[in-house]
């Protein structure tokens, strides 16, 4: 049955239609119902958090930033309410990313693309932009008509377009504006920005995010989900037959018949599908697909078709949820006339939950028990050991003390290792011999040069571990680090 391919056919693409496809613009219709209400609620919540969180204050004492959530890049600090992270603690973000990824998998194994349909910024902002569009230009039919019209534009139409884009740009601009507020004291920065005294970089970022928001939510819309985002592809590979997805009930819907005909046939006692082929599910779909064709990669599972169909079913007096959340198994079971089964608790969801609990628990534990006093010790590499004129041996170390607390500390340094070690910090005249004391200001690090000397009669033959203890004189808090005392 093999056909011979003529090489000429492979080059001439125009034989088979265009090589690229023009985008079919989607005109989602407004809809009301449970899922629409959930989406409005989540949109208000997500945008509310995003836009207003930078203004939430958190008292950290004098001299420390009072912004609840702040990424302080110049000083390399991240503040999140009562948590303050230093650059070396960036692994908490790794943990957070792991938890986020697994939470996404868990959501997916329970309810499909919950993220895509309700929470993803692309969805939320696109939804908001559609709402603005609808408010100004009218619903689906009007918008389609206006776009298709070839009449010369009247002032009214032009002002509509201008108004729509102005509001879009305003939202986009506010989105970029809120972004930069996470990187600086929000009230101060707002004041600076409006008086054109703000840093250049802030304006640049506002510009970039205004542009991305405007383009992605105003123009790219479902194209982002279909062509740009990797998650639909990954999601398809991660899902299973138990996951709830927005599904059309073939058993109830088929065969599709018009309302009138259905009534006639039912009167005759015949089996008729509930689907009246009204295309409301297609009309409201923000990605412009037909859910009745089964699960599709383009479907973000926002549930709006459920609302649309429910409204129609209510009108024609048929039971709701012809389209609803259902799993793959039930599609087949229903067609065989069996009762639907659901299983939320299964190895997959248990495993995901366990991973989230384990990583989250570990992070909380380490965060709760982390020390606000820390010490790092680095042995000199060249020379590793120095012989002094009286024959004693000295090793030098670079010691970095970290005081992550909100108060100044007086600390003492001890070195425990070979007998009779003496410890000296360069630049510090010790009041207590062999136990240098030093002040580290709050929320800062101090780098010291530490000299440890073993007397001639006690010269170690080989490398011996030394444990450095750093003790907060006032609080008794101790941090330790181990290095070696090296013989020449």
């Amino acid at each position, binding site marked *: 049955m093999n056909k011979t391919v003529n090489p000429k056919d*492979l080059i001439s693409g125009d034989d*088979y239609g265009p090589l690229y496809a023009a985008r079919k613009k989607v005109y989602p219709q407004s809809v009301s119902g449970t899922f629409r209400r959930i989406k409005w609620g989540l949109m208000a919540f997500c945008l509310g958090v995003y836009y207003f969180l930078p203004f939430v204050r958190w008292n950290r004492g004098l001299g420390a930033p009072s912004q609840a959530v702040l990424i302080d890049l110049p000083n390399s600090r991240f503040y999140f309410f009562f948590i303050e992270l230093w650059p070396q603690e960036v692994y908490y973000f790794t943990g957070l990313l792991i938890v986020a990824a697994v939470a996404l998998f868990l959501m997916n194994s329970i309810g499909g693309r919950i993220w895509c349909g309700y929470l993803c910024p692309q969805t939320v902002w696109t939804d908001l932009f559609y709402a603005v569009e609808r408010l100004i230009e009218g619903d689906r039919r009007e918008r389609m008509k206006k776009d298709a019209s070839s009449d010369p534009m009247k002032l009214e139409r032009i002002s509509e377009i201008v108004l729509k884009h102005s509001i879009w740009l305003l939202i986009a601009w506010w989105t970029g504006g809120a972004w930069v507020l996470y990187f600086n004291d929000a009230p101060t920065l707002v004041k600076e920005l409006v008086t054109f005294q703000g840093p250049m970089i802030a304006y640049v970022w506002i510009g970039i995010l205004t542009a991305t928001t405007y383009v992605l939510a105003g123009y790219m819309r479902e194209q982002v989900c279909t062509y740009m985002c990797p998650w639909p592809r990954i999601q398809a590979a991660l899902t299973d037959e138990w996951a709830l997805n927005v599904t059309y009930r073939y058993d109830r819907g088929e065969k599709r018949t018009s309302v009138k005909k259905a009534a006639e046939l039912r009167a005759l006692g015949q089996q008729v599908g509930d689907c009246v082929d009204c295309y409301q599910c297609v009309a409201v779909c923000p990605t412009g697909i037909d859910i009745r064709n089964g699960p599709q990669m383009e479907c973000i599972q926002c549930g709006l078709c459920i609302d649309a169909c429910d409204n129609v079913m209510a009108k024609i007096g048929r039971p709701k949820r012809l389209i609803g959340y259902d799993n793959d198994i039930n599609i087949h079971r229903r067609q065989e006339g069996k009762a639907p089964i659901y299983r939320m608790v299964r190895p997959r969801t248990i495993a995901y939950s366990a991973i989230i609990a384990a990583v989250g628990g570990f992070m909380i534990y380490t965060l709760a028990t982390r020390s606000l006093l820390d010490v790092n010790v680095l042995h000199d590499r060249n020379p590793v050991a120095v012989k*002094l004129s009286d024959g004693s041996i000295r090793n*030098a170390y670079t010691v970095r003390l970290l005081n992550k607390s909100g108060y100044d500390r007086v600390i003492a340094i001890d070195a425990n290792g070979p007998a009779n070690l003496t410890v000296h910090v360069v630049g510090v005249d010790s009041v207590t011999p062999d136990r240098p004391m030093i002040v580290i200001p709050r929320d800062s690090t101090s780098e010291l040069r530490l000299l440890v000397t073993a007397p001639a009669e006690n010269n170690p033959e080989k490398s011996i571990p030394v444990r450095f203890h750093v003790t907060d004189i006032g609080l008794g808090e101790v941090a330790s680090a181990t290095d070696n005392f090296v013989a020449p």
Partner: protein
Amino acid sequence: MTDHSEVDTVTGKSTTGHEWDGIKELNTPLPRWWVICFYLTIVWAIGYWIVYPAWPLIASNTTGVFGYSSRADVAVELANLEKIRGDKMVALGAASLADIEKDPALLALARAKGKTVFGDNCAPCHGSGGAGAKGFPNLNDDDWLWGGTLDQIMQTIQFGARSGHAKTHEGQMLAFGKDGVLKADEIVTVANYVRSLSGLPTRKGFDAAKGEKIFAENCVACHGDGGKGNQELGAPNLTDKIWLYGSDEAALIETISQGRAGVMPAWEGRLDPATIKAMAVYVHSLGGGK
């Protein structure tokens, strides 16, 4: 030939008409905006060729209309850095050496600056960490030829040793053998005597009294009574455990016969005063400073 209006029955999509072993390729066209973006990136790349240095020529390369060069970028960055450091370096230049060591911020700056300058200028002889080598003193220990206080270290860096500078440290180990001052057996004897000063074992049958006599007549003038050394002359302490040219008999005999006069260049004029100060503090803080 192929039927290009063929539609795949399962997906409802048209096929490209290509078929391999019964598998047909569906026609899944790229979105148009994607293709446009792709071509735009090519146009953008051409913009790069025009704006930035791009194409290699025989002996050079196209420079681009902006005249950008990464080398110029580095120069600007370095100039910025100097500007940022400017004030601090002025503070460093104004502070006394002792005050620098007492002020943690100035000390950190001096150590950082000193370390860099040391690596550029001093490391070839003294080693990157100041560990020294035969003939080049270890700057980490507490044995100093010309003194180990901050001021003394600074003076040595400024003017050097036997450097030819008007204020340089002078004084050298004479060549007692080469110049015929001491005979060969006398040199062996005094070498062993010097070893005995720091408790090192001596050659069998060594005449300590004779050694002491030779030492008193020839060496005490510079190395002092008992060989404790003299930092005014750069005469090392012979009683400690640190030996610049080695402590074995052969090394000592060579030192006594041939003399020693290592040279440390003067850095005044080559490095600015604040930098020399930073370097003095750095060397002092290596651990041997007095």
